[in-house]
């Protein structure tokens, strides 16, 4: 486990991870455990990964999924590497059942939405977050508007002027003071709540494509439902 897994703000299983020894992502630390398997992500130091392979350590490279199909694929790969394929399939079946429940709910009319991340970044098409929005019945404005560059910083007044029906604030759960997150507390966002359904979503749910992603879909589908009810009222 890396030290990042023990950070409760961003890791889903941090509490369990804190009971285990952590490393800083260096090959020699990993080898000191004499591991049966080493999982490495795409941001691991290539030199460390090369070293692990050279000394013959069993390395499994995990890709962060860009779609929900990718989430299933990675779960299968990890489960197979661990020799527990049936547990992987059970997890996938659970995710699929929950996704099907969301998909079977009424999805009309479409609800416009935009994601605001710390530092005013938004999320464009072709990303896992965009896939989550689509499955929740939301229409990602950042994917449709040609004047917003994908995954770029968007000035707050542009976010406000787009008048999305749902505004998704992507924030970490246990907060430390930062200007980046202070942006999400700007009074203009509170003032928009008269027109817009504002929903906060902990970023750990959907930053990496793990099984928690389905919870993100469910929460956003609920927000979409609320926005639809609001739109139908007047």
């Amino acid at each position, binding site marked *: 486990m890396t030290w990042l897994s023990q950070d409760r*703000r*961003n890791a889903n299983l941090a509490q369990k991870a804190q009971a285990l020894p952590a490393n800083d992502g260096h090959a020699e630390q990993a080898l000191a455990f004499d591991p049966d398997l080493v999982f490495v992500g795409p941001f691991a130091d290539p030199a460390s990964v090369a070293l692990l392979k050279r000394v013959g350590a069993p390395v499994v490279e995990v890709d962060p999924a860009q779609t929900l199909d990718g989430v299933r694929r990675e779960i299968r790969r990890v489960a197979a590497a661990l020799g527990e394929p049936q547990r992987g399939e059970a997890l996938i079946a659970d995710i699929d059942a929950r996704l099907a429940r969301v998909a079977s709910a009424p999805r009309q009319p479409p609800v416009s939405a935009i994601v605001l991340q*710390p*530092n*005013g970044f938004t999320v464009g098409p072709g990303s896992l977050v965009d896939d989550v929005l689509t499955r929740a019945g939301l229409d990602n404005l950042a994917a449709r508007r040609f004047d917003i*560059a994908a995954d*770029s*910083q968007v*000035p*707050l*007044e*542009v976010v*406000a*002027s787009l*008048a999305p029906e749902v505004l998704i604030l992507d924030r*970490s759960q246990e907060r*430390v*003071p*930062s*200007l*980046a*997150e202070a*942006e999400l507390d*700007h*009074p*203009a966002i509170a*003032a*928009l709540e*008269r*027109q817009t359904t504002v929903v906060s979503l902990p970023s750990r749910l959907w930053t990496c494509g793990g099984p928690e992603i389905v919870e993100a879909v469910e929460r956003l589908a609920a927000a979409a439902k609320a926005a639809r009810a609001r739109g139908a009222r007047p």
Partner: protein
Amino acid sequence: MSARPAGAEVAYGPLLAALAALTLGAALVSLAVGYARLDLFAALADAFAGRPTVAAVVLEQIRLPRAALGATVGFSLGLAGAALQGLLRNPLADPGVIGVSGGAAFGAVVVFYSGLAGLIALAMPLGGVAGAVLAALALYALAGRGAGTMTLILAGVTINAFAGALTALALNLSPNPYAAYEIMFWLMGSLADRSLPQLWLALPLSLVGWALLLASAPALDALSLGEDTAASLGFDLGRLRARLVAGVALCVGAAVAVTGAISFVGLVAPHLLRPLVGHRPGRLLLVSGFGGAIVLLVADIVVRLIPLHPELRLGVATALIGAPLLYGLIDRMWGEA
């Protein structure tokens, strides 16, 4: 310094009125400029009628604080620059160049990232003020009492470097994952997406600072004739120094706490306006305040009009104008020496 080029001086009252009008005009243009298309008149109508439309929210919560903070912070920086130049009798004294802004940024950073600002809102500008006081005292200990330009600049460089290192250190020690990005805000400054509560935080302390500095005008005029002359005219120099340091720290500290350190405004504004007030440091104060407000508002309009994404940091824009000016000033002073 006392040479007064004839013909450049203009009448003080009309000059003030013109600068005030220009400040107001720049603030109105700042309201009209932005990233989203905004029907300003419809937004104004909605805002005055209390209709919480999107246009009204953008105008009231985003554009208005940006323009008002631009004017307030610019006024503080211009006024503080003129006051420091009068006190140190040196035209190169700018709160950014000599490290006062850097000290304020460090003070604000400590208060913000320790979480204190989350408990008491006013702690944030007060942290900036405390940092500015420390930097100003350190500077005065090294370069006060008519020290040479070289000493002043070197002292400023040292204080700036030290404050910048402390700011980076404080951010390094904070558990904030965005720290590296936020160092840029504190060292370069920005007015992007500021809010009304931040304006209400900065304004009261700034007003007290302005009052202290503007009340020092007669003493600064006397000081330009030499310390002995000023003392013989009945001015208590110890009290004057304390009042000026307090005034500069209050308005610069409060400004930096909400916008980060923006350099060179306090250098550019007094430099451009000095000939127009006949090189009188007392009269230079108020006009430099308005001058600073105009400079900062215009710079902030320009950074929004340049099609750069994300927008150019305000401190970068002012440094691009101010640093060559500083270079030229130093060059000229060497030529005269």
